[in-house]
């Protein structure tokens, strides 16, 4: 079929179709999906916003709801754990985590792109942590960082660095860094394969042309490959940032935000306040926290997007 006949047949069928749209079939195919989506995603989304104006506590088997206006949001400003621990920790993570991840994952993606020896093995190995549950990763690293018999401390002591064999998860200054490291360990492979896919999508001819023009490998990387990779880099950065902002599994298993809230993140604080808060279970307050935090994440993503996509 020539392109013209293809077009003509498309046009004629389309004009026929605009006259009689198969509404019944549209409803049958899209209806179940959209109804399901509205019940289980859109409704809860708005309900969370609604909840944030209420006090919702179970009393004697019944859930009691009282309207409190903006009280939950005001309480948020006076919540020391939220303001002084959860937010700074999560922001620290959201800045340090993606930075390290982007730098190393880009480097590794280039190395595999240029086919260093054993590149297939590396790709296979680096991707493995992504398939393993955050629970398994968290528990293994709880053991790795164990003060007495953990792999890290045993190794440090074996090479005579006893003073660095700390109680990694028991102090107040190190746990958040352990969390950042373990999450990096668990997710860098994702950024790596996405960047590798982005690199492989760049036509080989461009690189060859640069070579013919006398460019060195470094020049080709800096002047040709990196600029062409930029859209992928921005996408991967956004995915990585959003990943840190919502991460729950690894932190929850490693520390639950302990000790003394020193590794509390917004995700664990919402969970702690909503479902493990002893004494006064209240679903309104954590809802307000989730709403504020979602706003912050949206702004963060918007900033990354505007700022990096424009930069030349």
């Amino acid at each position, binding site marked *: 079929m020539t392109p013209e006949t293809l077009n003509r047949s498309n046009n004629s069928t389309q004009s026929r*179709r605009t006259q009689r749209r198969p509404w019944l079939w549209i409803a049958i195919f899209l209806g179940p999906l959209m109804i399901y989506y509205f019940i289980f995603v859109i409704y809860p989304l708005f309900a969370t916003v609604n909840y944030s104006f209420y006090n919702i506590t179970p009393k004697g088997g019944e859930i009691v709801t009282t309207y409190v206006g903006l009280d939950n949001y005001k309480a948020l400003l006076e919540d020391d754990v939220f303001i002084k621990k959860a937010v700074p920790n999560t922001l620290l993570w959201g800045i340090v985590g993606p930075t390290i991840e982007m730098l190393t994952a880009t480097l590794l993606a280039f190395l595999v792109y240029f086919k260093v*020896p054993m590149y297939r093995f590396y790709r296979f190995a680096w991707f493995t942590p992504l398939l393993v549950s955050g629970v398994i990763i968290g528990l293994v690293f709880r*053991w790795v960082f164990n003060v007495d018999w953990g792999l890290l401390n045993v190794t440090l002591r074996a090479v005579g660095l006893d003073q660095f064999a700390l109680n990694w998860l028991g102090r107040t200054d190190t746990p958040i860094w352990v969390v950042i490291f373990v999450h990096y360990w668990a997710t860098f492979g994702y950024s790596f394969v996405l960047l590798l896919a982005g690199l492989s999508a760049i036509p080989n001819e461009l690189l060859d042309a640069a070579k013919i023009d006398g460019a060195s490998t470094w020049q080709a990387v800096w002047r040709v490959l990196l600029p062409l990779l930029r859209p992928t880099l921005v996408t991967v950065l956004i995915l990585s940032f959003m990943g840190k902002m919502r991460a729950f599994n690894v932190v929850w298993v490693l520390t639950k935000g302990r000790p003394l809230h020193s590794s509390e993140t917004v995700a664990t604080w919402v969970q702690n306040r909503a479902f493990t808060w002893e004494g006064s279970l209240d679903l309104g307050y954590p809802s307000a926290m989730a709403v504020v935090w979602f706003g912050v994440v949206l702004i963060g993503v918007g900033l990354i997007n505007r700022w990096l996509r424009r930069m030349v």
Partner: protein
Amino acid sequence: MAVENNRNTLAEADYSSRRNTIGKLRRNMGLVILTVVLLVFTMIVIIPFIWMTIMSFRTTTEILTAPYGLPSTLRWQNYARLMFDPQIAFYRFFINSAFVTFFALVFTVILSTMGGYGFGRSRYNFKFRGWLFVLLLFALMLPPQIMYIPQFTMMSRYGLLNSRWSLVLLYTASALPVSTYLMATYFSQLPTELEDAARIDGCNDFGMFWRVMVPLTRPALATVILINGIHFWNELLLAVTMVTEPTKRTLPAAMMMFVGEHGSNYAIAAASLVTAMLPVLILYLFLSDKFIEGLTAGAIKG
């Protein structure tokens, strides 16, 4: 023949700039150092898995006295105890996880295949379809924390708390946006002639969908099943929130509980981690390229 082959590889080496680069590197020591660095880095990635597998074959005393050591004998008893000791009976959590993963996958596949067909084919286009699609994809931005409190009260209202069905329903919801996106993209690439041919053969729209189109989407279906299956198998936040009754937990929640209760029995705990991880890793060994492709496809969502 030999000469011809030789010339071919030479020509390739000239034109393939990638191989050239390696050739240059090989001339100096750089490559050796680079390989050592990469191997150390890769060891850091792999060692925790190897360590935990070795741990699972030792006794807790052995682990505590010599964390690095190898097992004196392979203690398969650890696994037997983990699975069938009536106090632990870990197999129940396997059944729970398999149940939840299976039914959530069935729901996801049905809804996203039909929805993907409706969104992907130009035959079903109407004025606000694009908007609806954007609304659906909007959920990719949502962290689970922004929805799970009302989801919890919803499940509590309908008596589904502590039921595995609550997880089936919510996992399906979380998987729909990306799955529908993947299916819709795939369906939109199938030629219109297939519809015409099916119509001539007397199919109605459902027959067109079921007999002609769906069998052609097997690669996309495999991706949807793979990426969501891993996610359902490993999920923790909803699993600990919706299900608190010990016997109904899925594997991730059970492992957390188990390590909390039998915290000092590291050998059995390690065995529980290895068994939970094994099904996915075995699949990965055989289908690693498919896994990597699938997770990459799931992320590129425009």
